[in-house]
């Protein structure tokens, strides 16, 4: 199963690499800082295992999104479908830099993030098909994948709404900080189109005042739905949007730069220095969603140019070959294998059945409404008023 590979936090992986070969990659020029005295490193060392696992994760993401496209066009998936291909390096880099104790909340473009956090291709695609084994039990769909065990707080349909929630998660992490240890961070990913939402400014203000370990991560794919960033935002340096809050701009197509930048951010925020703005310069090949062909507001030449010069998969393949970790034939063989695995998982998802009618009434109320046994504190008014503590008091 593809999912087990990604459960091991990055830290454990690094310590086992003492005997593996590693290679230093130059990532200068991938960062721009704002209000920082320090900066992320200019070169990063990566082992073969790390690079191979990143490559496999990114290729799996790519194949999964392509499969979603094909299935949507064959009408087996309906409704909303926002695809992430082209932006795989962002999710992979963040996943490799943070641990599963760090909270992650993102926008509706969440298939690949769900894959990283406790998901598998069959669960994610199954959710889109609407089968009981889907990621959210077929109750969420494309935009509402959620996994509390792995600290993945979804998939959110409302533009920008995930950011104040992310600040709340950062507050919870600070509240639950174990003394003497750095705080777990919270990261909220949103797009350049969402960056001007008023609620984000408010969340940023409170995060700065309370010095929350919050990372505001803008995935800048240059288009807010169909409007280019020059036309939808008067400020195009999104990493400077925090004003006094320090910011970092990272080349989002370079997975090693993303990982190093996120490591730097986690260190900064986890130490209690307050929030941070991160802008990932990335690109999406598909349109905004499957209803959008993606070519009415941008040239095909631009998309082809990005595919040929800045593709994140091509970059990591080049890294693997330059470091002589894998040969071209091995890479092609890996790609073939992953294709087959993804196909097999999709077929498995297709064979599953939708949830039964008994699932209709679950996941609505808290499981146990007995006063005192409730999952919620006593002062919360329960949906069934008669069982609320205040009434019984």
């Amino acid at each position, binding site marked *: 199963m593809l999912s087990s590979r990604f459960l091991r936090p990055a830290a454990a992986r690094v310590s086992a690499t003492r005997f593996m070969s590693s290679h230093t990659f130059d990532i200068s020029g991938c960062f721009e800082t704002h209000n920082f005295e320090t900066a992320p490193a200019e070169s990063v060392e990566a082992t073969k295992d790390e690079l191979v696992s990143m490559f496999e994760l990114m290729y799996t993401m790519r194949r999964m999104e392509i499969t979603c496209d094909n299935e949507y066009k064959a009408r087996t998936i309906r409704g909303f479908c926002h695809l992430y291909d082209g932006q795989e390096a962002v999710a992979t880099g963040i996943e490799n830099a943070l641990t599963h104790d760090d909270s992650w909340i993102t926008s509706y473009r969440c298939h690949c993030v769900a894959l990283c956090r406790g998901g598998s291709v069959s669960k994610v695609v199954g959710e889109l098909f609407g089968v009981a084994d889907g990621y959210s039990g077929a109750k969420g769909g494309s935009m509402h994948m959620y996994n509390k065990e792995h600290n993945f707080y979804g998939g959110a349909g409302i533009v920008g709404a995930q950011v104040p929630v992310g600040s709340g998660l950062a507050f919870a992490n600070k509240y639950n900080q174990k003394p003497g240890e750095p705080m777990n961070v919270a990261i909220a990913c949103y797009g350049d189109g969402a960056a001007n939402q008023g609620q984000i400014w408010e969340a940023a203000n409170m995060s700065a005042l309370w010095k929350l370990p919050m990372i505001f991560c803008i995935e800048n794919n240059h288009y807010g739905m169909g409007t280019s960033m020059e036309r939808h935002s008067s400020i195009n340096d999104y990493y400077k949007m925090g004003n006094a809050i320090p910011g970092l701009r990272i080349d989002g197509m370079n997975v090693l730069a993303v990982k190093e930048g996120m490591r730097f951010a986690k260190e900064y925020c986890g130490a209690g220095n307050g929030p941070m703005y991160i802008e990932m310069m990335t690109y999406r090949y598909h349109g905004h969603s499957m209803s959008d062909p993606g070519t009415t507001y941008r040239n095909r030449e631009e998309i*082809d140019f990005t595919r040929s010069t800045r593709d994140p998969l091509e970059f990591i393949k080049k890294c693997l070959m330059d470091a002589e970790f894998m040969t071209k034939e091995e890479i092609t063989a890996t790609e073939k294998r992953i294709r087959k695995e993804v196909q097999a998982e999709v077929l498995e998802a297709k064979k599953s059945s939708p949830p039964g009618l008994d699932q209709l009434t679950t996941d609505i109320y808290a499981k146990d409404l007995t006063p005192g046994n409730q999952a919620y504190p006593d002062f919360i008014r329960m949906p069934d008023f008669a069982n609320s503590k205040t009434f019984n008091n």
Partner: protein
Amino acid sequence: MNTALRLRFSVYAQRGLTRDLIARRSIHSSFLVAKDYPAHTLLPMPALSPTMESGTIAEWGLQEGDSFSAGSVFCSVETDKATMDFESQDDGFLAKILREGSGAVDIPVGAPIAVVVEEEEDIGAFSDYVLEAEVPVTAAPEAGESKAPDTSSSTPAPVGREVSTEHVLLPSARFLAESKGLDATGLPGSGKGGRVTKGDVLAAIASGTFMPPLAKESAAPVQAASAMQPAAATPGAPFTDLEIPPVDTMGTFEDVANNNMRKVIARRLTESKREVPHFYTSMEVELDDVLKLRKQLVADHDVKVSVNDVIIRCCSLALRDVPEVNGTYDPKTDAIKLQNSIDISIAVATPAGLITPIVPNTDKLGLSEITDKVRDLAGRAREGKLAPEEYQGGTFCVSNLGMFGIDEFSAVINPPQAAILAVGGGSRRVVPTPYIDGAEEQAKPSIKTIMTARLSADRRVVDEATASLFMSAFKHYISKPELLLL
């Protein structure tokens, strides 16, 4: 849908498969490996919009044997909404195109349109590839030759029959029996002279009386005279279409497929002509003052204004004066809705068809503004670059065929508008001057440029008197262009 497709779906219908299941059969996955062919994928017609049911392949962007990568365009697909490109997400090679040209019209979503392979060397294996279900159903009916069942039938004729076996079946009984593929000539008939009626055949079927299957005649070539027969079908198969004999046409013809725009125009204007009671009022107007004004504007002020723009302005002012013509009839409520704004559509002939872009709030625009707007809209209409709100709507329409040399014509109203003004070209004519009683010398007849304007109006909204008022207002403005200042 072409015949092959209809047969294919009838085959599927017999197997009880729904459309959804057809799509779910993973036509695009490489697990459907047909025997003898290397691993390949059948590319299905994609659903490029949520409401798309079928699409027409306008043009293939690749040829057989070409390689493609993520982002390259397979073909452009014309749907009910727009023409969109079908992009590939993957790399591969196009081995065989299954639908092109005339076979690429109205392909339902999910039907295979091409074969793609991953390895270049596999391309050659598909040169003769034919999609399995497209092989015509072999139970194709043979053309029956004669009306009567063959006389060598072994069933003896019942007693009491006064007619020969040839004529014993009444037409409705024969039809019914042949559609079931049965020979009903052996039945005892309750009709006149022992003829077998339809009731007899129905009763026999209900009671299970044995009727031998209809013998197929040897397939002699169908002659035009006897060919209008229900064809003999295999027993149990559903009734098949009439065999149309090959007709010797004089000369050749060419089928011109209508593009979407023309189809929509055809449908809407047929509906208009059928539903809307048209009536026509013509008026001849003198154009001399308008032409003089035009010359003056060009000479003194270097402003180019065409006669059509003046006509549009005159129409807008006339609509202001006679607002009853600027309305719509709502058949659901049987009410006339008078529109608040005056938006005049102009008929523009484009290579793709006739389109009517709208000049919004025409009465509030000056003459040069109308000129600019019309020029912009007409130019963009010819290039096909109009936004939908620029050609959908409008309260009145003006159609001018003067530049094509037409003197006068009647136009079809564009629903839901209430009227359309059809304007011909100006022709120079001799016009008699009024006779003045008692004058020494009668004034000589003058030569004037006369143009005919005909208003087609919807009789439910506009009556003849109102139409006449409108036309006289129009004539009033166009004969005296100084009134356009008001």
